[in-house]
């Protein structure tokens, strides 16, 4: 498609659209039976940082009978060009129109990419509504964390995949091949797939009240998520695609474990990716070596939801250090646990360069930290800060959340006090006055499906802004504090879609028609346009974000089973209000979340001689 070449000089960052990167795979189109386009509904540099894309790229392209090519959301300058020249959206590998593929898989990472999804479909020339797509149009499939409540997107998708994708994708391809070879239609394929775990076909269900029920007796009432039981056996990309231009996270990655059982009550990832499944050290060292050799990165990130919790972290680091590479390598952790041990680990990794360290105490008082089950004390934080300052760091970054359930003025002031206490530690440790910095980053609480706080309302915009002002006042005199926060109106939209149902789809469509794109980017986000869209669609967004959902009401995601039982979530929600914490099941005691018995899996820890499975079957 020579047309693409001519577009490139007219857009910013043309490298986003060329393809052909090192380790990218280009297959012979005519020799492959099943063709998948994989869309990340944000810009190239963001999407290329996403490990899940690399995993599926590898899994599918390893099959001789299938191919997977990438496509990202075109930046508005490219969108304008594509539209004015009538060029349909194309994939990076072959520059073929997305509509020529059998399947368009779209990853659902974040609610504020939903308008980009509609835009992608439109630019591809694919009808937005699933029911308007004929047999000749690609099957549109969604997956990722937002698939655990995909209802606002239901009319636009043919299928959602729940949970780990590595095995499900093969099942999907196999069945597609089979059905197509027998001359079957999309509907035959979807009907068969719907009976299997992990596959949710929204058109086979309808919304009844707030809940969603199957239309046919052979369609299951609840769809259970997929879990890869043994990550050591799961495919991992030894040759990930190396982006042309610097990605947001521009480094090699290995996934140390999946799942997290710390049990923070606001955290969706901590619930939907259960149980914890660790990889073993020899596998990780081998994967680390391969990915470094085949990419040429000088940094290896050990990813997971909480890498310092990895039971064999020190042996892993020792193993990586022993690797005989032809170039220097830095090992890094995406986030740190709030304690001195974590700082010690970080210090061992930095080899002198100390830019800044990040901790997430999340709340300003012990009372509120107990409510959210963030088992970190002020002492932990101050000790961690002390260790960091003594080791030579001069800048710390602290993550907090405001608008959490039960939060009061005291808790906001508590953030200020905690930050001042950290500054005092810095002074005491002799950090030069002009160098000492604490960056405070504030997110607004967003109630998420499948969490103990799924019933909680989000506090109003006025109240959120009031609390932010209070915090600003608290920290006003501290010149050494850099305060930043997530835009509350974006958080509002996140809450609306995170807890939304099918009635939101028309509002989404209206917003996209009004030009909403890249809503997660401040320079593109327009709340007035969204307000107009809600009004036009006759939808009250506040009824989703600000309303307390009741325990006994059917929730829009109740038919989707992440393994964690509702009983457990209710119990956790009640413990939150009593200020009681719940331990991590990795400590040995099962907390009865329900994942292991319902999914037939067990936590897998890499630590030798430690058998947690004995205590988990008991719940």
């Amino acid at each position: 498609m020579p047309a693409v070449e001519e577009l490139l000089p007219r857009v910013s960052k043309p490298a986003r659209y060329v393809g052909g990167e090192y380790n990218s795979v280009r297959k012979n189109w005519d020799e492959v039976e099943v063709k998948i386009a994989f869309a990340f509904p944000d810009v190239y540099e963001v999407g290329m940082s996403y490990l899940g894309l690399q995993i599926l790229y590898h899994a599918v392209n390893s099959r001789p009978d299938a191919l997977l090519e990438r496509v990202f959301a075109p930046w508005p300058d490219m969108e304008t060009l594509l539209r004015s020249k009538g060029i349909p959206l194309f994939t990076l590998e072959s520059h073929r129109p997305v509509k020529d593929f059998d399947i368009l898989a779209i990853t659902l990472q974040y609610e504020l990419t939903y308008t980009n999804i509609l835009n992608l479909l439109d630019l591809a020339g694919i009808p937005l509504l699933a029911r308007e797509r004929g047999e000749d149009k690609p099957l549109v499939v969604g997956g990722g964390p937002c698939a655990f409540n995909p209802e606002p997107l239901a009319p636009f998708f043919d299928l959602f995949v729940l949970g780990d994708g590595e095995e499900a994708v093969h099942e999907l391809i196999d069945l597609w091949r089979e059905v197509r070879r027998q001359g079957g239609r999309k509907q035959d394929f979807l009907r068969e797939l719907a009976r299997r775990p992990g596959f949710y076909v929204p058109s086979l269900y309808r919304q009844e009240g707030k809940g969603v029920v199957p239309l046919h007796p052979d369609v299951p009432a609840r769809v259970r998520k997929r879990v890869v039981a043994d990550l050591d056996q799961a495919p991992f990309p030894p040759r990930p695609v190396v982006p042309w231009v610097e990605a947001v996270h521009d480094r090699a990655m290995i996934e140390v474990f999946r799942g997290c059982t710390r049990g923070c009550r606001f955290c969706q990832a901590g619930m939907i990716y259960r149980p914890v499944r660790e990889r073993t050290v020899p596998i990780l060292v081998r994967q680390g070596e391969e990915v470094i050799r085949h990419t040429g990165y000088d940094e290896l990130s050990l990813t997971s939801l909480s890498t310092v919790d990895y039971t064999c972290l020190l042996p892993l680091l020792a193993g990586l250090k022993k690797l005989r590479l032809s170039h220097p390598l830095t090992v890094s952790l995406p986030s740190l646990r709030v304690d001195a041990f974590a700082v010690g680990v970080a210090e061992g990794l930095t080899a002198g360069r100390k830019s800044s360290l990040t901790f997430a105490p999340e709340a300003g008082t012990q009372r509120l930290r107990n409510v959210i089950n963030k088992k970190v004390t002020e002492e932990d934080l101050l000790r961690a800060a002390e260790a960091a300052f003594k080791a030579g760091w001069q800048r710390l970054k602290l993550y907090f959340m405001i608008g959490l359930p039960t939060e009061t003025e005291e808790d906001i002031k508590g953030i200020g006090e905690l930050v001042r206490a950290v500054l005092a530690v810095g002074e005491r440790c002799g950090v030069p006055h002009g160098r000492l910095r604490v960056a405070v980053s504030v997110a607004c609480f967003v109630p998420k499906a499948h969490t103990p706080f799924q019933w909680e309302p989000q506090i109003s915009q006025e109240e959120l802004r009031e609390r932010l002002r209070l915090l600003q006042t608290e920290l006003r005199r501290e010149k050494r504090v850099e305060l930043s926060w997530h835009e509350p109106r974006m958080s509002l939209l996140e809450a609306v879609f995170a807890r939304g149902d099918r009635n939101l789809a028309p509002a989404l469509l209206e917003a996209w028609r009004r030009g909403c794109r890249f809503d997660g980017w401040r320079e593109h986000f327009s709340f007035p346009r969204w307000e107009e869209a809600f009004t036009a669609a006759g939808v009250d967004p506040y009824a989703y974000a600000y309303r307390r959902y009741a325990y006994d009401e059917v929730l829009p995601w109740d038919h989707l089973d992440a393994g964690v039982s509702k009983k457990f979530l209710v119990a956790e929600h009640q413990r939150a209000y009593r200020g009681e914490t719940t331990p991590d099941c990795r400590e040995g005691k099962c907390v009865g979340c329900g994942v292991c018995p319902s999914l037939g899996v067990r936590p897998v820890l890499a630590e030798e001689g430690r058998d947690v499975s004995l205590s988990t079957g008991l719940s």
Partner: protein
Amino acid sequence: MGHLDLVRLFEQALRRSALPVVYSGGFNPRPRLVFAAPLPVGVRGLGELVDVYLSSLLSPALIQERLAAALPQGLALVGVRRVPLEAPALASLVAGAAYRAEGELAGITPKEAEAARQAILKASSLPWQRRGPEGAKVVDLRPGIKQLQVEVKGERVVLEMLVRAGQEGNVRPEEVVALFLKTGGFAGEPEDFLYYRTALFAKSQGERLVPLF
């Protein structure tokens, strides 16, 4: 691709090649490499040059083989030459660059194109407004344009130019094309052209430019 991205890409390729590259010191060691001249975004390089420092003497053929295998498609390693350590750095030698610009202009005739070329080369000065980060300023492009050739076949126009580059200043190929369009009164935009840098030049015996590779 921006210049820094190209540097990043070469660093990665050198690490993948496992050649005995010299690394910079400091907390963040990087392969020691220096490009002769940054390639502007949107321009395709057909003969870019880079100095790479190795810690042991390897045959150029071996380096060629190992590094070529580590480069992504679209980046071909044209050749490898051994340069003594005491030789001046490439970047300090660059004094000129050859560019090719290809485009289509409706209704253009070879005669008109030639007239525009002549007008440019015969002008004693060519004031040009250049917009930079510190606002607009007027520069004279004429001394920086060393050679200019224009070929017209039907509507297809190819400009070959040799312009000043390096430490004494740069003339950008799209500036020359814009000048050409303006001088000839042709309807078109510099953005409608495809640009190639075909070679880099050094000074030899005074002002004469000779190819660097």
